[in-house]
């Protein structure tokens, strides 16, 4: 168990490329932090600097208040699970798991005992003598986990460990990682580009973009109050809908002239973006006063429990995706009246930052014709 402290951590490559622009993060004991972001956002670089596989250009990294910037990976007391597992192909499962212990000069009996105990924990008992190529993808994944667990490290580092598995196994292993991490109580940093994995695993979520931390917090906080348009677009599936708008007479106006009374205070004439999630749009009952958005369904994606309707507002190019009930009898070309609560609206300014909602959050959203 350990705490992890990153202070203005920077990574600059010799060719001048800056992968990390000063990352600040503190991780509490036993916490599972998930770092998520698109490819090239620096999340893997960050993990590799934590591991010691990349040098730190500037800033400080401490594990349990001990500065580890200059330490070799093996001296940092961390364990890493790689995307392609990186198992030693010529060693048996037991050999793979015990290699680090052997290198530390731990007695053979002790190594065997600890490997056996870990294998038991992961259900690998039968496979200890097999070679990695005789294992299935899920089993290899378990061995990679076992190799990390058996060392009893201060920190687990996971580098997209589930992305080589098929969808079903991924869900299963996701739960298992969560269960093991909680049971062992080891601090963990988990990197992924899969936002579902990120949401479900994280105690706290760090969204990265272009070498910066965009936002850090509990998954539901980030989902409900994304600090930037980037975070809003990255979390949630299907992604949040965005509509361009201009502030007008205390409300906002969409490019096609539809005016909405929204409780956001923007200077008159300022351009911004309205964000609303597909699951927060619902069909207005015919009796509802002032139905809000009249859209035309252009495409349907039945997912079983839900039905995604790709719709457009008249005169606008932007898609408006709506999550309908799976049994909804919508058909292409149909017109729908949609309504939404202002509490579910997000407004982002031209720089993509969240605009705070005005006090009167109970205000009704109404179309002003």
């Amino acid at each position, binding site marked *: 168990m350990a705490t992890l402290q990153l202070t203005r951590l920077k990574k600059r490559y010799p060719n001048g490329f800056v992968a990390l622009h000063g990352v600040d993060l503190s991780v509490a004991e036993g916490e599972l932090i998930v770092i998520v972001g698109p490819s090239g956002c620096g999340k893997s670089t960050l993990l590799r600097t934590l*591991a*010691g*596989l990349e040098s730190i250009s500037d800033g400080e990294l401490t594990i349990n208040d001990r500065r580890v910037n200059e330490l*070799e*990976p*093996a001296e940092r007391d*961390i*364990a*890493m699970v*790689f*995307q*392609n597992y*990186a*198992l*030693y*192909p*010529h060693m048996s499962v037991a050999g793979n798991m015990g*290699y*680090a212990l052997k*290198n*530390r000069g731990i007695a053979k009996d002790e190594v065997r005992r600890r490997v056996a105990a870990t294998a038991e924990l992961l259900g690998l008992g039968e496979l200890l003598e097999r070679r990695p*190529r005789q294992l299935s993808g899920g089993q290899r994944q378990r061995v990679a986990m076992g*190799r990390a667990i058996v060392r009893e490290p201060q920190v687990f580092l996971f580098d997209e460990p589930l992305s080589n598995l098929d969808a079903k196994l991924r869900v299963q292993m996701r739960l298992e990682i969560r269960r093991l991490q909680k049971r062992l109580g080891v601090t963990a940093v988990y990197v992924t580009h899969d936002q579902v994995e990120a949401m479900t695993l994280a105690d706290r979520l760090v969204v990265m973009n272009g070498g910066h931390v965009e936002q850090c917090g509990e998954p539901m906080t980030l989902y409900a109050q994304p600090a930037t348009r980037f975070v809003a677009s990255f979390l949630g599936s299907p992604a949040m809908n965005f509509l361009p708008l201009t502030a007008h007479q205390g409300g906002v106006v969409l490019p096609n002239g539809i005016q909405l009374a929204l409780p956001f205070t923007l200077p008159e004439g300022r351009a911004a973006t309205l964000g609303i999630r597909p699951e927060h749009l619902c069909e207005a009952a015919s009796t509802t006063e002032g139905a809000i958005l009249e859209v035309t369904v252009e495409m349907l994606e039945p997912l079983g429990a839900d039905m995604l309707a790709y719709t457009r507002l008249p005169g606008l190019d932007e898609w408006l995706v709506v999550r309908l009930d799976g049994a909804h009898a919508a058909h292409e070309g149909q017109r729908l009246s949609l309504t939404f609560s202002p509490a579910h609206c997000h407004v982002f300014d031209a720089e993509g930052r969240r605009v705070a909602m005005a006090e009167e959050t109970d205000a009704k959203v109404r179309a002003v014709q």
Partner: protein
Amino acid sequence: MRYQRRGLDVVSHLLLAAGCGLFFLPVWLAFTASTHSMSDLYTHIAPLWIGDVGLANYARLLSEPVNGLNAGVLRLLFNSLVMATGIAVGKIVISVLAAYAIVFFRFPFRRLCFWLIFITLMLPVEVRILPTYEVVANLQMLDSYSGLILPLIASATATFLLRQFYLTIPPELVEAARIDGAGPWRFLKDILLPLSKTNLAALFVIMFIYGWNQYLWPLLITTDADYMTVVVSLKRMLTTGDALVPWQDVTATAILAMGPPVLVILILQRYFVKGLVDAEK
């Protein structure tokens, strides 16, 4: 490709058999010649079947010094074995280390080092034989095993082959080993060498045969029959002045000289074929 046609099977096997026969015929002729007496060989055309003095020929050859040389065939074979093994092992040790440095370590002029090694591919022994002789002579290594072996153990080919193999090792494997606390030597010993086992076996076979078949270099630096190799002695046995060439001895020596390389191939062929076909991943 696999075709389900009986006719094709028969034809391919006939072709294979004919090919094998063609390549085996000279060896067979050498073997039969080694079992006849000298007078037989000079009065009859090349014999196709085994003669009656085979055992006697071989026994005499193995117990007495070779004509015109004061060293026996066993000594010559031993010299060849030392030289070929020394060259093969030396080449592998040097190439493993060179390729390891070039692929896994970052140091200044790394690329330059690689290209310098690579360029030496264009300089076989024959091209640099005079300066090499000069150096070896100055180091007092004429007529010695080290003189036979050392100038031949640098190998650009082996370095290049191993480099190509090392480049296929996923970087994560190297990183996993670093995290597991394996230093450079331990990584080489525990991970790289076991993984390149098949490549090393294939290289050993190729390099052993290369060393065994060396002719020009041993011919040049050995004057003492104690250090002469069997391949050089074969040529020496043919230059008999006015006397008749003892073909039964020459062919018998040639047959004996084939032994060690064949043995090496038989022992290592399991790895050898695997190493050439696919690296064990």
